């Protein structure tokens, strides 16, 4: 009994933290632009910065 309660609490809080993460990611605008991040990640960090 006790152990099931504990597991239940753990599973719901883990799922709850995922829900919070989801809402945060939407709120911070991560899904507003789905085109630039995949391009941006391919850029090198200024290798040819000579000046």
């Amino acid at each position, binding site marked *: 009994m006790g152990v099931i309660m504990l597991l239940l609490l753990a599973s719901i809080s883990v*799922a709850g933290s995922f829900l919070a993460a989801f809402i945060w990611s939407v709120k911070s605008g991560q899904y507003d632009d789905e085109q630039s991040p995949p391009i941006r990640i391919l850029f090198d960090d200024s290798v*040819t910065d000579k000046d």
Partner: protein
Amino acid sequence: MQQSPISASAVSCFHCGEDCGQIQIQAHGKYFCCEGCRMVYELLNSKGLCDYYSFNQTPGNNQRIPVRSDKFQFLEDDPIQRSLISFRNDTQTHVSFYLPQVHCSSCLWLLENLHRINPGVMSSKVNFERKEATVVFDHHVISLRAVAELLTSIGYEPYISFHDMQKKKPVQDRRKIYRLGVAGFCFANIMLLSFPEYLGIDIKEAHLLNFFRYVNLGLSLPVFFYSAAEFYTSAWQALRHRFLNIDAPIVLAILVTFFRSVYEVYTGTGSGYFDSMTGIVFFMLAGRVLQDRTHKQLSFDRDYTSYFPIAVTRVNDTEQHSVSLSEIKLNDTLLIHHQELIPADGILTRGKALIDYSFVTGESAPVMKEMGEMVYAGGRQMAGNIEILVIREVAQSYLTRLWNRDVFSKEKDSQTSFVHALSRWFTWIVFAIAAIAGTYWMLHDETRMWNAITAVLIIACPCALLLSNTFTNGNILRQLSARKLYLRNAAVIENLADIDTIVFDKTGTLTTGVSEDVVYDGRPIPAPIRRKIATLAAQSTHPLSKSILQWAGESLQDVSLAFREESGKGIEGMVDGDLIAMGSAAFITGKEDTHETLAAVYLSVEGKFMGCFRFRNHYREAIPALLQELKQHYHLVVLSGDNPGEEANLRQMLGREAALYFRQQPEDKLDKLKLLQEQGHSVMMIGDGLNDSGALKQADVGMALADNTNHFTPASDAIIDAQVLPKLYRFIQLCRANRRIVMAAFLVSIVYNITGLWFAVQGNLSPMIAAILMPSSSLSILLITYGFSNMASRKLLPET
């Protein structure tokens, strides 16, 4: 750097990739088509930003038309600055610019490295879908105007319109997504916690069972009160307008399910249907979210303010000021630069105007205006700078008057979808079944009566219909936009399926509006003279000269040339010893030509009349074939702002039944549309310019045509890329298939409903059966709608 006239094989510009033509600029071992492109290259080279060219070949934007150096002077004006800036504190300012030129990964990279060109810029971030760059800069180091000029100097001229100043951008509504997230979370957990009960928990652990039931009740509360609120408000709003939409029976089912479940848990008689309820809310919200995914890069709500510049130059005695459009008063004198839009009606007081009204009237040829003549708002000045005296303010001008008509103030009714009518039928049938089951059990076993009635209402809500409708709509919208037809929302699919009349604008829609076919009629022209004509035509700024130049071929290089151009009349010149003149009938022959309907340019060589050039509109490719196909199924109408010069040609393409109207003012177009609708037609209008705005708004489906979807299109229900216009009929067929697919999915779901009803009327619908039926019916609907709509779109419109 040197200029070298190489006429060998075409060389393309290192920066923008366009053909360099005859004048090539060579610098750093690379070729450029113009000074502008070279300057951008040199700027990037000096800052070590030539990686720009390594991500994509020739990523630049053509710089042939230089931007006026004081163009962004208005950004020094305080009220304008305040309206554009999104955030400012002591050390930094945030501003977002719309940059229509953004098109590739190089653009993204360069625009996010702005800080390396100017240290005053702290950071910049591009939103690729919206083509927007948000720049954070230190306003002590660099001014807003300088930021705009910096962007312009690398080929990304910000587009700032009057519209940006008027209202703040709408904040994206993300509530539906939060609601979906919460519903998903609760649904999954409730399902998990329901398993022990379904799989048969040990009778010794009954207290645990009760605990699970209460946890489920707790988890269903956020769904009931928060996630499903979407449906409550929609149903309530419709009811207030005395309309029963599909959300009303759904709300009824949610309420019945919830309260019966609470009752069961409270009395300890059962576990309730929490998993079915949260599941259906989750699936329905998912359908709505998918259906409402809009095209962020496109705007369907542009009015004239998006076309107008944010500021114009006002001339006071000797000084010039940039003022915002709303500050323009009567009797102000405005300086209109070359290629600028006239913002208010006025009288020409200085300079000669060559005004292109195609934007407002659809007339393809620019008109000449002399000093003292009226010029109207919306025209674009094509030849040099002019000054006008304002006689009507912006809001009262000829063009903007159109927007004061009531058609622009009312929203289109979106509650006409067939699913609402269907759901009403469905609901009455369900009520009837519930009543019959209730009466039966009242007579036979009263204890089962409420059980049976509520179970019927739970199992037979029209959720399946809503699901199949939203998922099909969402998928069809996506399929259409993958093929470059962008619809404003799902309601347009149905409207498009129902039309019986198609109205076309001519200039810019049926015709390309840019290039014209030149037909020469007269005595034969020897080849050397032909090249001399080209040389002379190249000197003129008149748009018809450009068409003649194209017709005549390459112009001569390094020839002795002396010419005189009389604006609006013609051009006359000595080209390598030959006297050539081209122009209006009066300019060449001395007599007006009165019975000419097409635009014509007369030609004389050595004072002798040779013949004349006539200009025919150049129809878009495949337009004749499209019209041929459409005229078999639809009533076709052409509303043109142009003169009837093309009537015979159009008549031939459209057939005898089509109605052709010429010289239609924007308001005439609107009224013609209204008339057609009053005659009981369901009308689609296809147009491209501001002059069609009224008609586009009035039509059942207003479709704006764009050669480039980044360009500005008037407010409309749909935007179609000019390339795919020939497939119009197939698009309409796909929209028609939409309804059949919804019905097919709905019929399949009814099988599940009948199975459920079988248990429900007997009063023994167990939560487990409901929990199996609900997700399996939802999933099969999802598969059917996706499968069928993908199949239909692939069959009708194979992707190339």
